[in-house]
Structure formats: C-alpha cells, structure tokens
C-alpha cells in the first residue's frame, strides 16, 4: 500500500519540535557539568572555552541556539493553539517561528565570533 506522507507545515513543525527537544534534553546534563567547572575548576573551564574557540565548535553552538529558539518558538505556537482562541494563519506562524529561530542563531554567531 502506498506510504502516505504528510507534507504540510504543521507536520514539519512537529518534527522540528520533537528533534530539538531530544537534542536539548541530551545537551543539558553536559551543560550542567561544564558549568560546575566554572566555580570548582576555573582553569579547566577556561581551557574548555579555549577549545570552544574552534570554528566547528562555534558552529555547533550556533546550531544549538537555533534548536533552542526553534523549540521555544514552536512551543509558544503550541501554547497558542492549546490555550488561545483559534487563529487561521497557522502556516504563517510556522514560518515566523522558523524565521525567529534562524535569526537567534545568526545573532549568536555574530556575537560569538
């Protein structure tokens, strides 16, 4: 039987939200661990930030920021669907959230380099 694929905006919004959520959940313990270094072993922390100057790491950080912003804006979109009166411009909302996420990433990239 033919595999049906939902190729509409809100489906992709769901996929992005789920993938970004998993990525953030995996990232957080690492983030907490590194932050502990800032107080307990500042020299190690500064060594870490030196390593993080590498362009590839900066890019990965930027990707993380985009994922965070995507999860945030997608989440706000969901909160609007679930709690506010319905609005019909759903597809535009998805486009706006995507735009804001990329903008956040870009702003971070510009500030960290």
């Amino acid at each position: 039987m033919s595999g049906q694929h939902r190729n509409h905006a809100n489906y992709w919004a769901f996929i992005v939200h789920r993938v970004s959520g998993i990525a953030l959940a995996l990232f957080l313990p690492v983030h907490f661990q590194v932050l502990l270094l800032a107080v307990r072993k500042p020299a190690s922390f500064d060594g870490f930030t030196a390593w993080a100057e590498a362009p590839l790491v900066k890019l990965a950080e930027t990707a993380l920021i985009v994922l965070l912003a995507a999860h945030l804006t997608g989440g706000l979109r969901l909160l609007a669907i679930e709690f506010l009166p319905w609005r019909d411009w759903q597809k535009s909302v998805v486009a706006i959230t995507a735009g804001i996420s990329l903008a956040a990433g870009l702003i971070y990239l510009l500030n960290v380099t």
Partner: protein
Amino acid sequence: MSGDRNVQTEARLWLAQRVSAMILGLAVVVHLGTIIVAVQGGLSAAEIVGRIGGNPLWIAFYAVFVIAIAVHAPIGLRSILNEMTSLSPRRVDLLCFIAAAFLAVMGYRVVRDFYLIGGGA
C-alpha cells in the same frame, strides 16, 4: 510517578508540562539574551562567576529555571518513549522519573555552587 496509566495523572502531567513551558518561555528568552551579551569578547569562568555568583536575583532565577526544566523535559521524553519505543509504560515512567531526578540534582549542584560564592548570604 507510578506505572499505572490513569487518566487523571495524564491530565495533570499535561498541565504541568504546559505550565513549566510558560515559565521556560520567559526564562529562555532572558537566558538567551544574557548569553548573547555575555559571549561578546569571549567568555571566562571569572566573568560568569562575577555576573551570577552570590547574586540573589540570578540565583532565584536559575533555581526556578532548573525546577521548570526538571519538570518539563522528562514529561516530553515520556511522550517520545511511549510513542517511539516498545518499552512498557511502567519502564517509561521509571526512566522519566530518573531523568527528572538527574536533571534536578545536576542543576541544583550548579545553582548551589553559585549561591555559595556569595558566602551563602
């Protein structure tokens, strides 16, 4: 969080996730803004400690942030594990509870460290 799938629990978890989402909505915007400012000209341990350490407002902010995360992320993972794996409901609930405890403890340790920099005051 026990293994039984009663509807009351599902509804409450849904609400807890949405409320924590609202808190995180604000917290993440503040956090992202702060990070973008802080990374200008590089980031050092001393800079973070100087900005956050012992500051009661920041400590309170991050304490709330950590609690919201420890509620929000595990409930999200619960949906994913239920839908995309063949783990039993009991097993899923146990894993998510462990994840919540893990995040809470790790986050608590960081917040506590920064709190103690101010001499605990």
